[in-house]
């Protein structure tokens, strides 16, 4: 084994410039992989956190019609494992041309929704509303919420007085997530819509996540015309969107890694060609083909570990740079850049795999070389 290490070490030194190039190619691929994976991971963490904030409940029962009797709240509340049940009305609306969501919540249970006010106070009586920061310009005045004709009822206008501003959820992450909430007391909204005793959404929080699935199934059966969302299913749906971005990233990563692989292959193929005489000599004096293969493999591993670890570090800091860059471009949400061990390990492992795969052909060629072909030609 010592001869394997000796030959590998000395060759690494003799061709260090060229091997540094190969390591650089590997580093570039790994850096991109680690940077984009770190950003994707951060995005998932961010989106998941935002969804948990936006939908604090574990289960949401939702219908297009205001047809769910409020009495059901009592029934669900008494069920095994249920912690809290909140009825509410969620209606798509527009406010001076801007899309908005009109939400009626029981004012007594406002704590449940963990609303944090930026300005003003909570609504106390009918006709008062609080709006999201994105509609903050309406604070202190009156506003007209327009409802179009829908399954909920005919088109109508509702006048509200904006008494407070709540902190934007999702902090303006993606336009479609910008819900422009207008929150009013539930009782009043029921009255206005002529739907006393009914809601179109129920939020349920359970004591133990194990209750989520059976409870969701039971609700689906009880309200076949309504949809049952679990927080997990919402997160999954959102993660799927992030994953779509991930697929795009993966294409970029794959192309870069392919280029890294080609560079490594070129370097190793040229080197193999140059080393044919040397290897022929080694085999002639009794060094085995396996030892030759092992020696070159050792070099490739050394090159890719150096490249992989460099790329890993560069990628992690690159993710910070990417975030700063997005900031300059106006995307100003606080994307968490986390040091994810899986991403690091995956990055280095990919570096090794790409380098070894790209060197296989030159390595096999060298190890199978028949010494006489070269020695005879040299004579």
């Amino acid at each position: 084994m010592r001869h394997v290490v000796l030959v590998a070490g000395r060759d690494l030194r003799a061709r260090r410039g060229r091997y540094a190039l190969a390591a650089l190619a590997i580093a570039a691929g790994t850096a991109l992989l680690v940077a984009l994976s770190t950003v994707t991971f951060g995005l998932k963490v961010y989106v998941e956190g935002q969804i948990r904030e936006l939908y604090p409940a574990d289960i949401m029962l939702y219908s297009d019609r205001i047809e769910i009797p409020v009495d059901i709240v009592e029934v669900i509340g008494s069920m095994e494992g249920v912690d809290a049940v909140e009825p509410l009305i969620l209606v798509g609306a527009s406010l001076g041309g801007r899309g908005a969501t009109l939400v009626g919540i029981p004012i007594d249970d406002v704590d449940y929704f963990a609303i944090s006010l930026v300005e003003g106070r909570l609504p106390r009586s009918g006709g008062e509303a609080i709006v999201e920061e994105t509609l903050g310009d309406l604070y202190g005045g009156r506003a007209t919420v327009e409802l179009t004709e829908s399954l909920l009822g005919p088109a109508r206008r509702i006048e509200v007085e904006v008494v407070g501003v709540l902190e934007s959820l999702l902090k303006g992450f993606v336009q479609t997530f910008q819900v422009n909430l207008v929150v009013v007391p539930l009782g009043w909204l029921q009255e206005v819509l002529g739907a006393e005793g009914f809601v179109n959404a129920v939020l349920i929080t359970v004591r133990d996540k194990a209750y989520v699935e059976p409870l969701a199934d039971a609700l689906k059966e009880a309200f076949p015309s309504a949809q049952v969302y679990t927080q997990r299913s919402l997160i999954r749906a959102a993660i799927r969107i992030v994953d779509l971005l991930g697929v795009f990233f993966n294409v970029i990563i794959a192309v870069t890694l392919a280029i890294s692989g080609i560079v490594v292959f070129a370097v190793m193929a040229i080197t193999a060609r140059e080393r044919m005489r040397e290897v022929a000599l080694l085999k002639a004096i009794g060094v085995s083909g396996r030892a030759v293969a092992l020696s070159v493999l050792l070099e490739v591993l050394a090159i890719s570990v150096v490249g992989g670890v460099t790329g890993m570090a560069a990628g992690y800091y690159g993710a910070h740079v990417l975030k700063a860059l997005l900031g300059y471009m106006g995307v100003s949400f606080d994307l968490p850049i986390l040091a994810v061990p899986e991403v690091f390990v995956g990055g280095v492992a990919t570096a090794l795999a790409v380098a070894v795969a790209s060197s296989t052909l030159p390595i096999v060629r060298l190890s199978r070389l028949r010494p006489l072909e070269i020695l005879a030609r040299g004579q």
Partner: protein
Amino acid sequence: MAISLVDVDKVYRPSRDVEVVALRGATLTVERGEIVALMGPSGSGKTTALNIMGTLDRPTRGRVYVAGFDVTEADEGFLEALRLHYIGFVFQSINLVPSLTALENVALPMLAAGYPRHEAYRKARLLLDAVGLLDRAGHYPHQLSGGQQQRVAIARALANMPLILILDEPTSNVDVATARALLTLFREINSVLGTTIVMATHDPEVASIAGKVVYVRGGVVSRSAVKLAEVAGEPVDVERVRESMRRVFELEKELMSDMAGRNELVRRKAQLLP
């Protein structure tokens, strides 16, 4: 007997309809401890014969025995081990690994054979001293002259104390003085270590150190009737060379008892050494 070729043909087919007969019915026996010179013009088949004796090439027809083994159809793994432990080569041109120093080149076959690192380098130094190049131990091949490279190659060929030393035109790239020094070295290796030497040459002076001269012409091998003249002059300090060879041999005997426990080929070799 060390090597035996029995009715060996070697036919090369460089392309589909070209046949080159490099050896034709070659029969030759090399006894243990003998120095045999293959003489003949360029292209007569000397290198081909050496390659077959050294197990680097296989005959098209006939049988080949090396150190008591029938190697005609032996598998490549066994031949690699045989070359590592029993045969030392000095090739016509390519002989040293360019990225290794002279010392490392000499130590390499010992490391491959599993000698402890320290001992391998100790013996490599003794061998370099024997060929008069200890002061060049740290030099790379490109920093050495042709003759110096040749001597490092000889030290490398002797590293694992081979039973057989195969030399292909060992003096073709060096001046007359260096050539004579090398011949003295070969004779001392043969007499102190008992190494069987087979060499190809077209130089009668080189052949003169051989106990047996064999002529190769057009692939046909024939025993020489003539015993050639002695080497003129003694340009090197024979006593010194002989002394360093003895030191190599003593160290080797020490190391070999260790190695023999691990390797069947080495155990057999230990019994065959003087």
